């Protein structure tokens, strides 16, 4: 008997959504370049009621070589209720992602989610700027799709070490985004160049909100630009997690709010936070 069938729907307070623990079937799990892989799952409808920026907690398989113990949190690369698919884009770095990379078509993967609080697009935010680097771009992909659905103007600055590992560029273009690519290879990804690029966007089209993910360097730069021009922003953050649903208190990070340092759980209050409140680590 699957775990899922014994799950009894709880009565929830209005602000809490149902979280599901469910086995999904792997549709494909293929490399997209030398470093990243795309995992496509066949997923039941109830878990595809997601928000951009949310994540799932994946029970990675164990193999003779890899025995991850905790689940691994992974931001959603795409959720498609019409196709019944859930996508994750990941870089193989440690034991969890190495184990994930062994999944074959028709294997099962147990997922827990959707989890956390995602990005907001306020009704009066017309021109959106997405800035991210490496696998962080995966986290912003569902936001780009939602922005497109809501007919917002989208500029995406995609940063990477080199042009061959630039992620999601075609995807963002297909959504009608104005895509600007920068790389370490040609020196265009340095902070001063990025600042200039963003200042140009602000001067040309205006920017109503900034979205980013991960990188400390980008966080500091975008906080500074956001402050200077009074542009609101949101950032998706990472932290090591155990339970993923708020119980264990292991994924806290400090935030600066009203002049005070507060500790919040990345899994529960996040993973998306106010750009100015975030503190780099």
């Amino acid at each position: 008997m699957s775990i899922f069938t014994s799950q009894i729907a709880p009565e929830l307070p209005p602000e809490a959504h149902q979280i599901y623990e469910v086995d999904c079937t792997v549709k494909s799990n293929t490399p997209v370049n030398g470093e990243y892989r795309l995992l496509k799952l066949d997923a039941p409808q109830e878990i595809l009621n997601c928000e951009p920026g949310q994540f799932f907690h994946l029970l990675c398989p164990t193999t003779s070589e890899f025995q991850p113990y905790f689940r691994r949190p992974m931001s959603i690369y795409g959720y498609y209720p019409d196709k019944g698919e859930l996508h994750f884009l990941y870089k193989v770095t440690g034991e969890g992602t190495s184990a994930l990379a062994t999944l074959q078509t028709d294997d099962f993967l147990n997922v827990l989610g959707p989890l956390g609080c995602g990005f907001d697009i306020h009704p009066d935010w017309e021109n959106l700027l997405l800035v991210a680097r490496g696998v962080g771009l995966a986290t912003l992909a569902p936001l780009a799709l939602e922005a497109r659905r809501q007919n917002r103007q989208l500029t995406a600055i995609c940063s990477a070490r080199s042009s061959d590992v630039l992620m999601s560029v075609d995807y963002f273009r297909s959504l009608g985004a104005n895509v600007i690519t920068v790389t370490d290879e040609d020196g265009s990804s340095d902070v001063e160049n990025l600042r200039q690029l963003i200042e140009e966007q602000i001067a040309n089209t205006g920017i109503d909100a900034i979205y980013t993910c991960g990188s400390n360097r980008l966080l500091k730069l975008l906080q500074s630009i956001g402050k200077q021009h009074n542009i609101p922003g949101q950032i998706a953050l990472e932290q090591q997690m155990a339970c993923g649903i708020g119980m264990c208190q292991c994924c806290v990070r400090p935030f600066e709010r009203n002049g005070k340092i507060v500790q919040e759980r990345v899994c529960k209050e996040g993973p998306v936070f106010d750009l100015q409140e975030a503190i780099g680590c």
Partner: protein
Amino acid sequence: MLGLTTKIGSLTLKNPIMPASGTFSEDLAQIFDLDVLGAHVTKTITREKRNGNPTPRVCEVRGSMLNSIGIPSKGVDAFIENVIPFYAKYDAPLVVSISAGSADEFVTLCEEVSIAGVDAIEVNISCPNIEEDGKAFAMRPSTTEMVMKRLRNATDLPLWAKLTPNTGETTEVAKAAEAAGADALVVSNTLLAMAIDIKTRKPKLGNLMGGLSGPAFKPIALRMAFQCAKSVDIPVIGCGGIATIEDVIEYLIAGASAVQIGTATFIEPTIMVRLIDELPNYLKSQDLDSVSELIGSVRDEEAADGLVFMEAAP
């Protein structure tokens, strides 16, 4: 009708499966109906607000985990205002876990949470006693007895003493808690442990050391549950590394009257629901009518007392 109920002193639980403190919260209500559980056990609170330890607060070791969360607490007022009322809608008894650095503070907190809606108090005496040498109260019989006696006089609610494996005096501590008036023992908290990243040479926990829990810890906690059940007349609640129905059965046979599920919930959030489903099937498969037939049924007739109570490996 199969008998899943179990008695912990004056409390009757509808089944012997409950969460371990620190691995359970209101958040789990987003996944399943919490009323299926035998009891609810909240995360340890302190009187004052506490931030907890530096990150990383957890790390995984092969098939198990270490944690050094450090009891972040929103304080007793916030707990009474927000957490206790949340559980009012459930029939399952509410067990509130408390901790303090001194007996006086323990007493005050114990009195403050002895209110309507709370059915028992789990006393986390595995925390450091800051008035003495910083060693956990539950490391020694004397400090265990002292603090449990004070708490016994402070509340009429059932008191469950949560013991620590970081002691060489398991049975003496268990007897001290019983003598001081504890209604049950929870056996046990986590085992002090460490892990180092050999590439960076940094300890994997921000607090350097932390508690081992999960399947690797199970034989140790099971041994302690067995020793405690042999040495006291109050019920023992087994806790440590349970991840399967066989683990539950093993603890019951060792002498536990109920069990707490902790770390496994992080891996499989619905595990307690599954174990509660599987328990009657197991009883049927063994031609048993009730959980109580299993409790303490370990066949240790051949063992001398000296062997049962040993604190050193042979």
